[in-house]
């Protein structure tokens, strides 16, 4: 689960890391009021940032500076309601603009290949790190935390020196440790700060330089959500397709796509393969849908309902290789769903493996118009042909 910037910053601040003040607002008037407060506290400008879970919001015009409360209102009016890669901006983050001396990059991430937490840093901050990793991997400093002992202070110092932060060693070490600690405490896959910045602030005895975390991206491990009950409240339902929400509630893995062939498959690998074959046969899948292992008939019926909520679906392809999932359960669910469905769409079914014979009997006895296919290739061809017919 990806977190919005303001939720990510809350986790970082709670861990005692230096995150400058921020607030969240949903109306231009509120943004103006927040800006006024920061400007009165001595900020020379404020930054207004769209809260969306897609990358590239800066390029899309979703991050802007304002030098007065009025300007902040105007900027907010432009950003709120803006469409960024299909997502409507409903909230913005408001924060005093920092006086940045240097920008850096720092992240803790789960490294699958090394099976450790990887702390990665770069003296080039505010950049697109994915591009940097591809084009100039040597510009990225990498330190792996021990899986049982965690990140050691010497490793944090290595990172700090490599990033040229010798003058801010204590602060840098605390931030390195903090990112790794948050990974563990919150069961995160990723805790990213981009930029980590060296900023100048006005202190009682003149300007002081210190490190500040100006942006944050956190991704949580979905498998660990159950042991962090508070995390569920950070889920942004506004940004999710209602079908995704319904699918999650039913224990289905569902992704809506652009095509017209609804797919229902058990297992993620087989579901992706089925989609690949649909494309190869000249069709377009309308969704990815994995009903999971041991799917009962009610889950199958819910999956069918979800597929049919998409008006562009012209044919449905069901591909089940029974293992834990039993073919007869799936067949019962299909017959049930077929009886209740709102509109009639050609249905091609291929069920093999556990209890496939019983499944075939159930589908035949139901006397329905379900088209049975023996092989995956055959099922795909039939579904693609039927979708094409329906479109003509």
């Amino acid at each position, binding site marked *: 689960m990806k977190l919005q910037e303001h939720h990510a910053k809350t986790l970082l601040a709670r861990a005692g890391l230096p995150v400058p003040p921020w607030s969240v607002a949903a109306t231009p008037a509120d943004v103006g009021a927040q800006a006024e407060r920061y400007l009165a506290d001595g900020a020379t400008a404020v930054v207004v940032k769209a809260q969306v879970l897609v990358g590239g919001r800066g390029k899309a015009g979703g991050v802007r500076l304002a030098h007065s409360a009025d300007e902040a209102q105007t900027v907010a009016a432009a950003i709120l309601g803006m469409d960024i890669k299909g997502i409507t901006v409903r909230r913005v983050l408001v924060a005093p603009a920092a006086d940045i001396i240097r920008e850096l990059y720092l992240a803790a991430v789960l490294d699958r290949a090394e099976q450790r937490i990887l702390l990665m840093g770069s003296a080039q901050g505010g950049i697109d790190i994915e591009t940097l990793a591809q084009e100039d991997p040597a510009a990225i400093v990498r330190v792996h935390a021990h899986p049982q002992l965690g990140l050691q202070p010497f490793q944090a110092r290595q990172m700090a020196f490599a990033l040229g932060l010798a003058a801010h060693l204590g602060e840098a070490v605390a931030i390195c440790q903090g990112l790794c600690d948050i990974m563990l405490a919150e069961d995160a896959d990723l805790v990213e700060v981009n930029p980590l910045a060296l900023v100048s602030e006005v202190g009682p005895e003149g300007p002081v330089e210190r490190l500040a975390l100006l942006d944050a991206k956190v991704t949580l491990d979905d498998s660990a959500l159950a*042991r962090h009950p508070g995390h569920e409240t950070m889920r942004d339902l506004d940004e999710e397709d209602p079908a995704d929400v319904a699918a999650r509630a039913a224990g289905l893995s569902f992704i809506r796509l652009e095509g017209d062939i609804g797919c229902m498959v058990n297992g993620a690998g087989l579901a992706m393969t089925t989609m690949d074959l649909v494309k190869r046969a000249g069709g377009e899948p309308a969704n990815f849908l994995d009903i999971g292992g041991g799917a009962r008939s009610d889950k199958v019926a819910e999956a069918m309902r979800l597929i049919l909520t998409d008006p562009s679906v012209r044919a449905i392809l069901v591909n089940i290789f029974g293992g834990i999932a039993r073919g007869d359960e799936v067949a019962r669910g299909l017959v049930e769903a077929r009886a209740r469905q709102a509109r009639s769409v050609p249905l091609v079914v291929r069920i093999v493996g556990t209890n496939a014979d019983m499944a075939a009997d159930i589908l035949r006895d139901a006397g329905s118009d379900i088209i049975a296919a023996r092989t995956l290739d055959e099922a795909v061809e039939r579904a693609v042909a039927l979708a094409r017919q329906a479109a003509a």
Partner: protein
Amino acid sequence: MSILVDRSTRLLVQGITGREGGFHAQQMLDFGTTIVAGVTPGRGGQSALGGAVPVFDTCAAAVAASGADCSVIFVPAPAAPDAILEALDAGIGTIFCITEHIPALDMLKVVAEVKARGARLVGPNCPGATTPGQAKVGIIPGSIHRPGRVGLVSRSGTLTYEVVQAMSDAGIGQSTCVGIGGDPISGSSFVDILELFRDDPETEGVVLIGEIGGGAEEAAAAWKAEHMPDVPMVAFIAGRTAPPGRRMGHAGAIISGSGGTAEAKIGALETAGIRVATSPSQIPGMLIEAGIDPD
């Protein structure tokens, strides 16, 4: 010969009295697997599978009484890391964890411990391994196999069954089929299993089933080219047309700079001299062209 499991395997089932554990233990027994013990804390002294298998409270007691050398885990996710460590502590050398949805950071610590002790873990979130005609450990349907000389290793579950069925139908039998699971942190990698196949005199060819995300297929391709260049190998990658970013996401891309895309994987495999099928149904034909004789 074969790898990981065979007719000499003495299997312990952790979670044998549960719904999933009980069902699949019976399937394994019917396949011919030697199940010597089950473990469910608090149910020691009872028996399972119609009296065929004694149940113990702890793995240590089960191993002491039965001489189990392999374990398969069906306990729910919150208890699964502990179950792996318990099997390890009892001296079990080969552990299969079927359980899915175990938090990745738990597995980070558990996998490090398994490796430190010199044991082998397959999974979590995996379908297990089957040596046709000898033993099956896990949940792969027994009926799809045919004994033979091609090894199969896969990150996927049902897709594996699809490929095995296609091979068996074409008369190409399997030495051992291994599902390593698709979790971010797992006990055995493609390379770990390829190494076992390389050293198995009865495995003459290998099928590798990968998916988008991560860099495991690329690593396997490089290893194959260097360490088993003469072994016929065919691969399949699921997710050629998957929308980018949903499986792999940003976390993987910032490390490797590659998105773990199907193109990158197929490119790496082909560079290593491995043919990549575009449909599971093409795999048997490609194996035959690579020099594997069907029965």
